[in-house]
């Protein structure tokens, strides 16, 4: 009898959920407006998809209500997951060996994609994540305009390299310092602001930077962007075929992958440097002050800490690494345009930090690999194309899932962002580890 009641109540819940999903999905999923041959919008019905959503909602809600209904919600178990000691060194060795192994296995031509897209690109995001982690994860200052500093670094290299004739070794720190200077300039007026207002102002500044980059045609060439600036060289040896190139000096046959392998190690070293800097700084008074600021600004001030300095250093150091990453981005792409530095780029980097559990170095790296690598991997799978149609672009679904993941993270593990002291790792599927809420 009780069982019957349980089923009927679960059915009621499920019916309600289905009704809500039907309401949410009614025009937006059930129809799609597409321009027809007259260029007027015509509706395409997609009722099967709509009913699939409704059915899924019904099944999910029913299952949830049936198995969990009635009983009090079990508290989410806070399990401590400490990364084993060998994990760091093992990951490091894997990272060092990775490009050579890929070239050895696939040959220099097929390895291009693996070193570039899955190697260099992901490592740049890891570097960006660790940089933003200083501002957001350690100091607790929500920076929604991180892509602006990234843009400053990229444009600094693209503009200064042809103008000054300096190589990238000289320009790399210049890019970082310029971005840090911008971080300082933007950080200065917003020192007094509270958390959420501060976040919005950084967003406003970043948008202004992007609009200026888009419209200041004389310097930035607008939407078209900058290209043709000098690329990477190996301590003076350019990566070109012929006797003057790196390949001839090293006694190797010329291959495009050499440049990428060099860039890979360069990014790896810089990312590890960023990691080392933030790990060491956390043990210094400055790093302690950042974390204290994150926990309670008023208490900080009451204890005599100079919050202005603490905030500015957090902003400037975070921006410095973004500038370095921007320079590397310019070297990798060979061209820079404002469309690479939109708000959604800032949101993606922020998502890497948030999903990485803020303050946790390994977590941020794992999140970067997962968010950037997974969507690239999805692009490869031709099977998905046959299921979702030819126009299937996983990049769109990536940001959709990133958004959902941020919401889920905040709802299920909000303390992950603020209360971790030791580096912890966040894994999906509930195996998320954090220190128990303090």
């Amino acid at each position: 009898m009780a069982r019957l009641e349980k089923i009927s109540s679960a059915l009621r819940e499920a019916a309600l959920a289905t009704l809500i999903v039907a309401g949410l999905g009614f025009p937006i999923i059930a129809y799609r407006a597409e321009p027809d041959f007259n260029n007027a919008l015509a509706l395409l019905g997609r009722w099967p998809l709509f009913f699939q959503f409704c059915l899924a909602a019904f099944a999910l809600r029913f299952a949830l209500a049936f198995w969990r209904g009635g009983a009090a919600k079990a508290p989410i178990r806070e399990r401590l997951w400490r990364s084993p000691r060998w994990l760091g060194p093992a990951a490091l060795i894997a990272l060092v060996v990775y490009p050579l192994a890929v070239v050895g296995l696939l040959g220099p031509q097929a390895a291009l994609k693996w070193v570039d897209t899955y190697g260099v690109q992901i490592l740049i995001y890891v570097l960006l994540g660790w940089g933003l982690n200083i501002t957001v994860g350690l100091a607790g200052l929500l920076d929604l305009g991180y892509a602006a500093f990234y843009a400053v670094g990229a444009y600094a290299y693209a503009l200064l390299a042809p103008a000054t004739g300096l190589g990238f070794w000289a320009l790399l720190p210049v890019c970082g310092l310029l971005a840090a200077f911008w971080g300082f300039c933007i950080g200065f007026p917003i020192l007094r602001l509270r958390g959420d207002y501060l976040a919005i102002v950084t967003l406003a500044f970043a948008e202004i930077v992007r609009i200026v980059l888009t419209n200041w045609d004389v310097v930035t060439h607008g939407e078209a962007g900058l290209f043709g600036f000098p690329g990477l060289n190996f301590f003076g040896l350019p990566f070109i075929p012929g006797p003057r190139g790196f390949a001839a000096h090293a006694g190797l046959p010329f291959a495009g992958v050499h440049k990428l392998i060099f860039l890979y190690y360069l990014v790896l070293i810089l990312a590890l440097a960023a990691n080392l800097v933030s790990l060491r700084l956390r043990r210094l008074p400055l790093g302690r002050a950042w974390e204290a600021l994150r926990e309670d600004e008023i208490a900080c001030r009451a204890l005599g800490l100079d919050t202005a300095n603490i905030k500015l250093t957090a902003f400037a150091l975070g921006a410095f690494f973004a500038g370095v990453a921007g320079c590397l981005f310019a070297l990798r792409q060979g061209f820079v345009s404002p469309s690479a530095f939109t708000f959604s780029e800032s949101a993606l980097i922020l998502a890497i930090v948030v999903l990485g559990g803020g303050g946790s170095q390994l977590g941020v790296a794992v999140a970067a690999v997962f968010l950037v690598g997974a969507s690239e991997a999805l692009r490869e799978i031709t099977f998905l194309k046959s299921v979702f149609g030819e126009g299937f672009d996983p990049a769109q679904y990536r940001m959709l899932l990133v958004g959902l993941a941020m919401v889920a993270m905040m709802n299920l593990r909000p303390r992950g962002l603020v209360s971790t002291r030791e580096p912890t790792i966040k894994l999906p599927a509930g195996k998320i580890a954090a220190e128990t809420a303090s």
Partner: protein
Amino acid sequence: MLAFRRGESGGAMEVFLQQLINGVTLGSIYGLIAIGYTMVYGIIGMVNFAHGDVFMLSAFIALLILLLLTQMLGLGAAPAFIVAMGASMALTALWNYAIERVAYRRLRGSFRLAPLISAIGMSTFLANFVTVTQGPNNKSIPPMWDQVITLTSGGAYDVTLSYRQILIVAVTGVLLAAFWFVVQKTPLGRAQRACEQDAKMAALLGVDVNRTVALTFVIGAALAAVAGSLYLLQYGVVKSTDGFVPGVKAFTAAVLGGIGSLPGAVLGGLLIGLIETLWGQYFSSDYKDVAAFSVLAVTLIFMPSGLMGRPDVEKV
């Protein structure tokens, strides 16, 4: 006076008047969105970052229902638009109710940035959800009600006021009056103001805080849906990334007017609309967004309580 100006400066006065009209129209739309920001901030102290995307979503819902009614049921444009606006208000309200329930309710007692980060996630989700379901390109509809009243003629430039613009300003005015009545005179409005002052105390005195907050989101979404429908009517085009910039501008309006203040939100909306159109006319239309973003930054830095807001005292 007018004749003198016309002769002297080639219709400068007319251009200014026309931009004033356009600015007020745009400002009405910003004002309607800004109310959603200001109410939510007032009641739970959260920057509802996804509100701009809710506005964009509502424009899409209105567009689809409009097409459905005109193409499948053969309704005329005017009744179809009114029905579409009503349906969009209801469905967008349901969306925002669901969003509040899923993404924000549990975070009310969390640390200050948690709801904002969740809202950023929700904003990203909504924009990409619409991109995925409706495609990334522009959706445009043929213009409606584009008859105009010519206010001045014979000069270098005719100043015109379209029926659309009259409708937009009139709808905004009527809704604001109705809304003002709700907040000032009804039990719901009283509960809202009570939660705004002290949610815990209000709960102790028998106010259902969850219900009040949910209704605030519902009302905010309904007003955003009106703005979305009117935006579609006025500009005739919408795309899935259109939520972000109008959203930030409407938030600017809310901050400029003094966040938490309803008349402030409308005043801020009108000001932002005017600043944007006049800046676009007299300085540079490429940089017109810079004007709005600068106003946002400057207001937050130098007068965070805005024009009509109460100063926010942080209690320890």
